[in-house]
């Protein structure tokens, strides 16, 4: 039996169930395949040209607009139609200003109407002051080794000319087959760093030990790492790692990795109620001012990212309407901040239901319960992360309970009021509206 016949059988089953109306879905235009590449970084003063490809275009025409961060369209490009729904065009960094330029591809219908196909983004930045001509000056040093945004150990690199030495040391984290297991691979020849283009090529020797006590885990052999230290940041690197499982299958694995240089992280943070965000149209959200600790360490310019601890979001208002019937979804903290020169978040952390959500729950829960007053709210555990120095992708948790690492956030709606809290700091109770 071929793979095709399996898929066909699946579609046939689905089609047999369709009403004539719903089966029309398959005859409708499905949109546009999209632009590649999606995000491109440019270094100011370094002339680069990017070739873009737009695929899956079903409209008779395509036009491309370049817009700056003010929303002003400063150039329009007519791409080449390569046939088969594929269009191509190029953009030269010389026509771009500093910052992000949006590259918007628009389908052009026969009547001239525009529908958005897809957008790509060009980010022109000033070069790092530590950039040598071409690539970074050295790869030597202690690097945090991470995969999937999690630090697992240290890659220590020494450098002699373009040749690299050192070792990779990893500790298997908790929750895995052999938690706490430590293993080290030596960096062996030929391992090189090419200063002209930032290219990194590392071969690792045999692991020590070769397996964990009791043989619960075995460690990869024939490991190689290839990647680059990018021009814009000399204290981060990324690439792909491959290795061989001594006990196949599978015989080999590969995965992206990141490296970053050690840099300081906060020990905690303090929260203080600042204001109700009525000036921003979010009257029912409490703004909390947050400062990182210790204030003796300068975190200015570093980046923060928040998330919710898995399974920690408990929204009683949402849950009160049975079987996920609410039209307002539970909160999902997911914001980012830069750090100011005095170690504060760049803006308040805003916590609460939107005004429309407050009105919605009051009305619907009155109807549901028939009561004359009620109270409901949400709680969740907020997890803060800070970026590693120079990295826009590697973020690490910091602080302790209610001090960065799992802050308790809450908000409560009553018949007449709203209130919120963050990490032990409380807003006053607001009568709303």
């Amino acid at each position, binding site marked *: 039996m071929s793979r095709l016949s399996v898929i066909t059988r699946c579609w046939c089953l689905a089609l047999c169930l369709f009403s004539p109306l719903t089966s029309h879905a398959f005859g409708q235009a499905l949109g546009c395949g999209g632009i590649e590449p999606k995000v491109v970084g440019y270094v100011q003063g370094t002339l680069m040209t990017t070739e873009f490809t737009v695929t899956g275009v079903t409209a008779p025409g395509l036009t491309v607009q370049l817009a700056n961060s003010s929303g002003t369209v400063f150039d329009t490009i007519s791409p080449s139609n390569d046939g088969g729904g594929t269009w191509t065009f190029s953009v030269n960094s010389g026509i771009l200003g500093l910052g992000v330029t949006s590259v918007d591809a628009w389908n052009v219908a026969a009547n001239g109407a525009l529908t958005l196909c897809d*957008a790509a983004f060009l980010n022109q930045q000033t070069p790092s002051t530590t950039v040598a001509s071409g690539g970074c000056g050295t790869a030597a040093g202690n690097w945090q080794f991470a995969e999937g945004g999690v630090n697992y150990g240290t890659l220590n690199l020494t450098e002699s000319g373009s040749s690299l030495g050192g070792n990779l040391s990893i500790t298997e984290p908790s929750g895995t087959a052999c938690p706490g297991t430590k293993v080290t691979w030596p960096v062996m020849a030929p391992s090189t760093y090419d200063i002209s283009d930032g290219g990194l090529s590392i071969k690792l020797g045999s692991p020590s030990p070769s397996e964990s006590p009791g043989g619960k885990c075995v460690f990869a052999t024939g490991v190689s790492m290839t990647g680059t230290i990018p021009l814009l940041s000399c204290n981060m690197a990324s690439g792909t790692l491959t290795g061989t499982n001594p006990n196949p299958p599978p015989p080999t694995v590969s995965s992206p990795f990141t490296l970053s240089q050690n840099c300081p992280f906060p020990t905690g943070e303090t929260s203080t109620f600042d204001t109700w965000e009525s000036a921003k149209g979010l009257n029912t959200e409490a703004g909390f001012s947050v400062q990182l600790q210790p204030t003796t360490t300068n975190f200015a310019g570093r980046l923060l990212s928040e998330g919710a601890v898995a399974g920690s979001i408990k929204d009683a208002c949402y849950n009160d309407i049975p079987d996920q019937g609410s039209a307002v979804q539970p909160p*999902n*903290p997911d914001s980012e901040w830069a750090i100011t020169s005095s170690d504060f978040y760049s803006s308040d952390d805003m916590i609460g239901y939107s005004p*429309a959500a407050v009105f919605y729950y009051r009305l619907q829960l009155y109807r549901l319960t028939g009561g004359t007053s009620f109270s409901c709210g949400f709680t969740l555990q907020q997890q803060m992360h800070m970026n590693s120095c120079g990295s826009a992708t590697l973020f690490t948790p910091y602080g302790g309970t209610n001090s960065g690492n799992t802050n308790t956030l809450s908000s409560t709606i009553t018949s007449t009021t709203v209130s919120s809290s963050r990490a032990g700091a409380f807003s006053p109770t607001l009568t709303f509206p």
Partner: protein
Amino acid sequence: MNTLSFMPNLAFSSKTLLTVATVLAILGTAAQAETFTTSGRRPMLEVVQALQKEYGWRISYEDPALEYTGDLEDLTSPAYKATHTDPRDVLLVPLAKPFTFSWTSSAQTPDARSVMEQCVAQHNGSGNPGAFRVYYQGDALHVIPLAAKNAGGAMVPAVSALDSIVSFPAQQRTLIDTISLILNLVHRTSGVQAVVGMAAGNAMTKPISIAANGISARDALLLALDAYQAANLEAGLPWHPMTWALLYHADQKMYYLNLFTVRPAPPPSFNLIFPGN
């Protein structure tokens, strides 16, 4: 499962996303069947959000405007009805039965479009309220209403609120002001009311600048969310696209726009450390 522990990355880690078929070796490739069983009132939204979380796909969802009483359930308490006699003053929510979606994939990370098309096709044949179609804009997938029963119970084509055409000049506004402007224009052109339901306030207050010139509200919304991400990119932050769930509340005959950031799925398991024999 920690990413440093080796495991074949063919199964969902979510407890509710179950691998039901073992690998089928077919012409040297492997096809995998996955299922997801819903429990709530919006089965299509449930599977969209499960796939979004599992794979980091950027998928938006838009409710059909349900009008048929057989597609709705009245949850209003008798005590409330005793004192509120207006028949429109009731709590109406979608009425759906649990449904098991299934799809096949031959890759470790399934093809988003293929999976969504399979799920939409299955929903449309499930008997649950509304029918949908999939619309693509690059890596953004939209699940859009295709049809729903009218008040008389006849299946009729559905028009999404976000199909309204909007125009406004470029100007710096906060993200929430820009979105509110788009929703106000939708109301003005189509008579359909929509407001922001759930959204991260921290993101909503950031300034952006976009223009719209005779484009759909969906396109304008996508441009606004991308402009916010572009501002983040400029500040050195990673690209985390946003998407939405536009949910209809039948008794109010209005929509609530809920906004989410899409986080990338963890990379496939690899590692230097494997289970021993």
